[in-house]
Structure formats: structure tokens, C-alpha cells
């Protein structure tokens, strides 16, 4: 009867390991707030900044350390557009669908990208290389239509150039592997 049946230490340790010391430190700082649960979105932003997305294990760990029910944490994470619930590809393609780019044919670029990658917006290609996202304005309307791949800006994109651009990045991977 004297044996401890409490699994809190185990749960806490696992949660800390999943999130890492920097996030744990942030959560500990949040716990000093009168309403730690009110810092949930802030914490989720930091977790996503660190891991690139919010996996169920991340959300469960945040729930345990911040003592907010997991259903609520997952509900918040799945509600907001900004939060990603699956890992992003190696490169994120942000195709501008703002007014200027749109009138210059961004819709055709979008179609070409979807066809080429076999995915729709918000998804990641099966090879894990590209995540396709729509952007509202990248602030380069003079170069419309534009899209970003990772940190690179591609200007005056045409549907024909889409496979060539994608191939540049795939070539880099091949070279990395070769080296």
C-alpha cells in the first residue's frame, strides 16, 4: 500500500524532455502569472518557432506543464490558422495571392504548383520537400507574380518556370547527398 502510485514525476519529466529547457523556462515564467492559462497562445508560438510545427506530443507536454486540459490546448492549436499541426517540408513555398500578383496570373502558378507537387495549399509534398502556403502580399508588387521558396524570392514567375524552380531545390538535395 505504501508504494507510490503517483505518476506525476514521470509525466513531468517526459513533458520537459519533449519541449526542451528553453520552453520549460518560458512555461515556468508563465506560471508566475495570475492566469498561466492565458499565456497558452504565447507558449504555442514559441513551441512552433522551435520545432516548426505542433505535434500531439508537444501539445500534450504544454498541457501538462501549463496545467491546461489537452483538449483545450489542441482546440486552440487547431483553431488558429497560424499554427501548423504537421511538420513543414524542407522548404516552404509562399505563393503571393495578393491583388497585384493575382491579376498577373498567380492563379495559374497556383494550379501549376498543385499539379506539380500533387498537393493543395496547407499541405506538404509526399517526399517531405515542399510545403505550399498562400501569402497575402509579400511587398514586392512590382515584381508580380512573386513567390518565396524558403528565404529566396522568385520574381515574375510563369507556370512554365515552376518545374525549373522546384528542380533547383531538388538538385541541391541531390548534391548534398552526393557530397
Amino acid at each position, binding site marked *: 500500500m505504501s508504494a507510490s*502510485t503517483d505518476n506525476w514525476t514521470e509525466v513531468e519529466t517526459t513533458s520537459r524532455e519533449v519541449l526542451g529547457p528553453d520552453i520549460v523556462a518560458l512555461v515556468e515564467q508563465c506560471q508566475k502569472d495570475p492566469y498561466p492559462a492565458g499565456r497558452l497562445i504565447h507558449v504555442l508560438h514559441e513551441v512552433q518557432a522551435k520545432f516548426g510545427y505542433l505535434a500531439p506530443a508537444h501539445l500534450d507536454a504544454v498541457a501538462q506543464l501549463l496545467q491546461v486540459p489537452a483538449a483545450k490546448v*489542441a482546440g486552440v492549436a487547431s483553431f488558429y490558422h497560424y499554427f501548423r499541426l504537421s511538420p513543414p517540408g524542407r522548404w516552404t513555398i509562399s505563393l503571393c495571392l495578393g491583388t497585384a500578383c493575382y491579376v498577373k496570373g498567380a492563379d495559374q502558378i497556383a494550379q501549376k504548383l498543385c499539379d506539380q507537387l500533387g498537393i493543395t495549399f496547407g499541405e506538404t509534398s509526399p517526399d517531405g520537400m515542399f510545403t505550399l502556403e498562400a501569402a497575402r502580399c509579400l511587398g514586392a508588387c512590382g515584381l508580380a507574380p512573386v513567390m518565396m521558396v524558403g528565404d529566396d524570392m522568385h520574381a515574375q514567375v510563369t507556370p512554365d518556370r515552376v518545374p525549373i524552380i522546384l528542380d533547383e531545390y531538388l538538385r541541391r538535395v541531390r548534391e548534398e547527398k552526393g557530397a
Partner: protein
Amino acid sequence: MKKKQINLTIDETPLTVSEGTTIMEAAGSLGIHIPRLCYHPDLSLAGSCRVCIVDVAEMGHYMTACSVQVWEGMVVQTNSPAIRQARRDIVELILDNHPKDCQTCERDGNCELQNLAYSMGVRNRYFEGERKEFPIESSSVSVVRDPNKCILCGRCVRVCDEIQGVCNLSQHGRGFTTVVGPAHLADMDDSVCIQCGQCINVCPTAAFLEKPRTNDVWRALADPEMHVVVQTAPSIRAAIGEGFGMAPGTAATGQMITALRRLGFDAVFDTNFGADLTIVEEAHEFLTRLKEGPLPMITSCSPGWISFMERFYPELIPHASTCRSPMTMLSVLAKTYYAERRGISPEKIYMVAVMPCVAKKFEAARPEHRDAQGRPYTDAVLTTRELIWMVKCYGLGLAGLPAGEFDSPLGLSSGSGDIFGSTGGVMEATLRAASELVTGEPATRLDYTEVRNVEGLREAYVAIGPHNIHVGVANGLENAKTLLDKVARREEEFHVIEVMACPGGCIGGGGQPYPPEGMRILDPELLRLRASVLYEIDRNKKLRKSYENPAISELYDTYLGGPGTAKAHELLHTHYHARLPRGIR
């Protein structure tokens, strides 16, 4: 301090109410029932369904009566052709992506959405909305989740959080693809769900249902090889009549037994026998704990509570009574004691338990409650609702049936067993038994009204011999947290705590009939009426103490060798373990 009084007019009738009153409440005080769907008086306000809209003169737009508080000089119109039209439009829009399968739906006939649509005058489907096509989650042994039937009223989310303190459900995603479910839309049994079934009770449609076992039971009944045994929990007799048009608060014990015999059950036993046995074992356990600890002892009859403890308060596991629940005790004895006495092979016994509970389905499937070959002692658990359906399916009513009696030996019980079905009942029965055990003299006091816990949370001191016993009684797990936290933090010393997962105890269980017209789920009046049946039965019984049950004495004398013996321990006791994922208190 007296609240400020507000003067307003509703449907041309002036009235004065306290500040903070909602339009719906103020209208209710005039006898005006405003249609509603997502609203429930015991839950927080959501205002999500928009059905309760009324016209507030100075606003220029409709407002939801459930969530808007009255103000001075407010002029409200609750009814007009335009308002009725608007409400009907709203209900039509809720229906437009709802499956058109009312005739084949489990809730047909007692669906709030169906009733509302009818009363609103919806007679055509003008809108052909996009249909939801979500997978049905039916992996759990207890609860089935069908998001296609869900209208996102959020009652289940609120009851799970606010009444049960579990908070396993949330709305995930947004817009048209919003789904209610556990975190990551995990399978129910892999979430912190405790299978209490209150989501089923509060759901206005069939988005949550119990996992049906009726087909398995029909099959067993039709098998000439099987000796099919049934036991019914105390609270079934107090509620089953509601399913056949009897007024709430009508006892239907005898008719229920006859109906079970007509269905073809070979023996009809009473879970009350298991309850009496639980009391004797638990009283002995309590005496041991009084000397050796650990105290408090917490009751273990409610499987929703047991799951809650294993997920939310695992450090309290040493405090939970090791007694199996009355249901499982009786099932074990049916396949051992009864089987031996009748000369029937245990493999040929099919044990059915009719319970007010969906968590009992989970309990029955637990590995701890299986025999050495891995077969469950309880083969199938049916809810009260499932039994009502089976009786109707067979073509029977209850009202016209003659009264039958439970079979011996597992059908005889004292009044202590009956009151198990109501919150505080296990405590009262325990006190009756413990006072005799402690003092060694027959108990003169039988009624412990101070532990009859109608409000959800009670503490009391009860004198038993030289001891001043500090007891706590809680129903609804959010209430229970108050007591459990005191124990976990060692803030207060208790001797015995009774926890029932569901509001009102088993009578308000997740498997009980949907409330009759004019009443709502969790209705305190409905719970009071059901409880009154059990207290009435107890009061009128000659046998009121578990110790005096001759069938129990015979069992101990001829089979178990006495309470607390090794054999009693092997057959009647169990153990618990911490479960993951861990719940957030």
C-alpha cells in the same frame, strides 16, 4: 445585499426582476417558454444555436434570450410571426447539413433537434447543404462519437468540463470542418475520457451514444446451450418506467423482472445482492483501515470515478476500497458460487448486467475482472435505455405486466442495497454496517439523512461507537475534486468518502432514459423523483441492513468462509493502476 431591481416589459406584461436576470429567466417567471437548444441551466452560457432569439425594441436586431441580461426599461417581444419565421429559418439552417436519417437514428422519437424542428413548423427541407462526412469513432467499449450528427451546440464540451471536471472534449478546427472530440481526436479510450456518458445524456441529437450490446444479448438468448443470467442495478427499477410512459418516480421492479423473464433470461438476479456483499466487505475493510490505515477509504462502486482516479488522482489509489463493484461481485459469484450450486459449467453462463451506466461497459472489459482463462465475468452490459428498447422490440409494455420476483440466491437483498443507486446511499449503507461492526451491537439507527446528498457535495460527522467519523459525499466529479484535493493535499482528515461520478449518483447515470417531456437532463426534480423510489423501497423493506441478508450469510458460511478471507479476497476484491494520458485537474 439586496440586488438592484429592474423594470421591463415582456410581451406587453410589465415585470420587475433582479439585476443580472436573463431575458429567458425573466420570461420563464411569466410562464413564457422561449424555444432553446444549446442552453442548459446547469451549464455556462454558449449562445451558439441562436434558437432563443427575441425582439428587443430599441436594438433593431434580434438578441439571444439565454445570454442577454435585462436592463431598465427593456421592451421584449418573444413571439410574433416574424420571430417565429426567423427561429424556423435558424433551425432549418441547423438541419441543412444534418443527416436525413431520422427514422433509422437511435434518437428517433426523443431527439431534441427533431422535436424542435417539429414544434417550429419545419415541414420541408428547403436547403440542401453540404454534408459532413467524418469518420464515426466507435473504438471505445463505452461511448460512440458520431460527428456527422453533431450540431456544435457545445453542451457535451461544457458538461465534460464543468460538471465532470474532465474536460476531455473540445471543438477542434474551425468553420464547417469543426469537430467535437478529445485532444488530437484520439480514440475515446485513449483519451482522458472516463466513460461516464454524460455527453450522451446532454447531447440533443445522436452525436454521442453508448456502444450497443443488444445484438450480443439477443444472440445469447437465442442460444439453447447458454444459461443466460441477468442482473439489474438498483437504479434501473427507479427509471425504467419512464421509458414506457410511467411518471418519473414510479417503481417498476416487478414488471421489469417479468419483462426480463419473457425476453428469455434463465435467471434474474439483483445487483442489490452484490451491493449488500460490497457493504459487508467494505465495512470489514474500513475496520482494518481504521486500525492500520490508510484513511480515508474511498468507495469504489462507480466505474467513472475509478477511471477518473486512475487518470486524474493516481496518488489516491491506495485510498480506494479494493472491493469490486456490486455488478462485478455478482457476476463473479454467478460464474463460481451459483454455477457450482446449479451444476452449470461457467463457460455456459452468459452474464448480462443492466446498468444505468456506460462506464460499466468499460469496467466489464477490464482485465482485472476476467477469469483465469481471460473471459470476462460480465459478458455484456446494457444500459437502461438498451433494455427499454429490447423490451419494446419484443413487443412488450411494462404497465400491463404482472409483478415478478428476483431469483434466489443472488436476488435477495436488504434496503441497504437499494439505496446504492442514489448519491449518499453507499455511505448510508456503510454506516449502518460499520456501526454494528465497531460497537458489536445491533444498529439502532438506520437513517443517516445527513449524508443524502442532493446538492452534490456534503461533509458530516457521524458518531460510531467511540469514533467521530468524518465523512464526505460527492456526486459529479467537479464536486468530488473539492474533497479529493483536500485529501491529496492532506488539508483535512476524512474517514470515508463516497464518490459517484454522475450527478445524483447512479440514478443520473449516463445510461439512464432520456428525460420525459417537460423535464431536462440533470433536472434536480427528476433525480429527486428517481431517488425517492429507492428510499421508499428501503423504508418498506423488512431487511434493511446488509448483514441481515440471509443469502449473504449463507454465501459466507457455505462458500467464502467469512468476510475478508482469502477466498473472499480472491473473488471480491481488485486493484487499480495509474493510466495515461494523465488528466489535468
